[in-house]
């Protein structure tokens, strides 16, 4: 007989676990279901269904009117493009920057390495709101080049730019930690074999370590993407005008232009879809990375 009990008891246990997990999943999915269902309903239908489970289902007379209104009343395509550019560059730049630091911490030996690692880990507990004002003061003075009147000029201040939404968020302590944990578990013999062949640190990083780091790269991509896509406070502080505004401050603006909950739900649904798509694309590697590096750490 198996240690976990007779077959019938094991099946009942598995059934119970399955039901519990489905219940928890449903609980987490409830707000999303409500949001998507309401985006196809009029305000009257939303409030009528609020006290019953039909709040989670589209109405029989569902329509795309709310979605049409979103595109009529807001510059959502512009906001989404801005968010997409910011998120994409943050993801690519962030993966490079954070993985390089993690490689130096995990695979190279140098004086002060431990102190830097401690500092990075300490940054994990510092919320963004603490550094927002000092950061504002810094970006107000930073130089940047621009093309004006047929010549390259240097301007000071990064307000109303894409780089102000990207550069401060490239370095991410949590991503450094993820990469560090993952790189530590890659056998050092790979580096040594490469050294015997004549590879330097950059070659080892780029041609040996990173190609073997798919799971953690996917995890870091999700973390960085979510962080960039969901940015509200910082863009609200540094971006004026719709030209470079991302989606989250955009919803605040839309909230001012529309008092229809159905339209607001439609806006929210649209800006949630890319997040869901990215997560679904990377979830297998995300889970593998969390189990492989997060639990061991």
């Amino acid at each position, binding site marked *: 007989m198996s240690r976990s009990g007779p077959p019938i008891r094991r099946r009942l246990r598995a059934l119970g676990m399955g039901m519990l997990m489905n219940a928890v999943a449903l609980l987490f999915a409830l707000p999303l279901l409500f949001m998507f269902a309401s985006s196809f309903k009029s305000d009257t239908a939303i409030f009528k269904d609020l006290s019953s489970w039909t709040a989670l289902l589209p109405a029989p007379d569902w329509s795309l009117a709310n979605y049409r209104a979103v595109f009529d009343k807001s510059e959502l395509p512009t906001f989404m493009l801005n968010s997409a550019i910011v998120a994409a560059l943050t993801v690519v730049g962030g993966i490079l920057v954070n993985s390089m630091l993690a490689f130096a911490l995990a695979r190279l030996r140098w004086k002060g390495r431990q102190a830097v690692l401690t500092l990075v880990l300490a940054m994990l507990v510092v919320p963004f709101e603490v550094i927002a004002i000092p950061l504002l003061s810094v970006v107000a003075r930073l130089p940047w080049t621009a093309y004006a009147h047929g010549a390259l000029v240097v301007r000071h201040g990064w307000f109303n730019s894409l780089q102000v939404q990207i550069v401060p968020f490239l370095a991410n302590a949590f991503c450094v930690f993820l990469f560090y944990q993952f790189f530590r578990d890659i*056998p050092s*013999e*790979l580096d*040594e*074999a*490469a*050294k*015997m*062949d*004549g*590879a330097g640190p950059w*070659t080892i990083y780029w041609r*040996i370590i990173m*190609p*073997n780091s798919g799971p953690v790269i996917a995890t870091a991509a999700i973390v960085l993407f979510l962080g960039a896509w969901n940015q509200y406070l910082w863009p609200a502080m540094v971006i004026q005008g719709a030209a470079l505004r991302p989606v989250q401050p955009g919803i605040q603006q839309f909230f001012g232009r529309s008092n229809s909950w159905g339209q607001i739900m439609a806006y929210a649904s649209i800006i949630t879809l890319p997040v869901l798509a990215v997560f679904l694309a990377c979830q297998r590697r995300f889970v593998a990375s969390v189990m492989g590096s997060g639990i061991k750490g």
Partner: protein
Amino acid sequence: MAQITLNAVAKTYPGRPARQLFRDVSLDVGDGEFVVLVGPSGCGKSTLLRMIAGLEDISGGEIRIDGVRVDELAPVKRGLSMVFQNYALYGHMSVFENIAFGLRLNRTPRAEIERRVREAAELLQIGHLLERRPPQLSGGQRQRVAIGRAIVRAPRAFLFDEPLSNLDAALRADMRVEIARLHQRLGATMVYVTHDQVEAMTLADRIVVMGPNGVEQIGAPMRVYERPANVFVAGFIGSPKMNLFPARHDQEDRVAVGEATLPWRAAGSAAGSGAVTAGVRPEHLLLAADGPLRATLLLVERLGAESLLHLAVPGLAQALVASVKDAPPPEGSAVRLDVRPGRLHLFDAAGMRMAAAGDQAAQEKSGT
């Protein structure tokens, strides 16, 4: 191929207190020679190999290759190739790319890379695996790829760090033969690290036995086997292990073991050494009706071609082991034992071998 010389090499790990792994290790590896560093885990044999490779710094002494000092040089500049215990293959690259990696870094022309990789693959019989990736290969195949990666760079010497440790027993035996054949074909200088003394005995031109005191003995396999320099080497080399037990060497040049006396002649002075450690290999402990040692047979281990007899001898705390090829007597039997002439080893109070009369003649006869 190359000659590798180690002069008084030492390794100390910094810290409070600093940990000295070994000191004053000197060794000459001749051109085309196969030298095996053997010893238990933690004795420093892999560290010594890595110091030759340039993967670890040396704390003292010097390392020379063909007379040129190399201990300050980067690994790639020493002209050596290394095969690692866990193969160290790049899982995201094909077998071809793994073998070609070093050549690509060196900017070797593509046609030359193709030729050398295919040549190495044919030598190791892995030509049909070039498009596969390491996760798709068996352990033995991966080890061949690792060896191929080492061969293709045409190094001055090969370094092997316990390359067969991760293989099962049958595969290990096959790969051992492959490595021996490779050495014959290439005539290469090879330095090989293992904790398996069977590998050491079968592969080496010379063995370097490393132990708690650094290098314990250097010599040809049979010399080390037949004339171990100290108790550590005596107990480490040989399977099954040498029987080591307390004895007394008296003024009449006899060795008292428990209630019995065994003949032994010291080289030079016949003065008694007092308490000593005696050693006899299991195959040299014989069942003899008129043998001087009484014993009771406790246990028989049947191995097929031979049997191991575990024997209790009055006056000895531990059982002795004898190896016999004939049918063993039943367990519980009272038997008598003798030692094959000239096969009793004595070690003094410090554990060092005591020279026996006849050692010199035997050495000259065997040429070791």
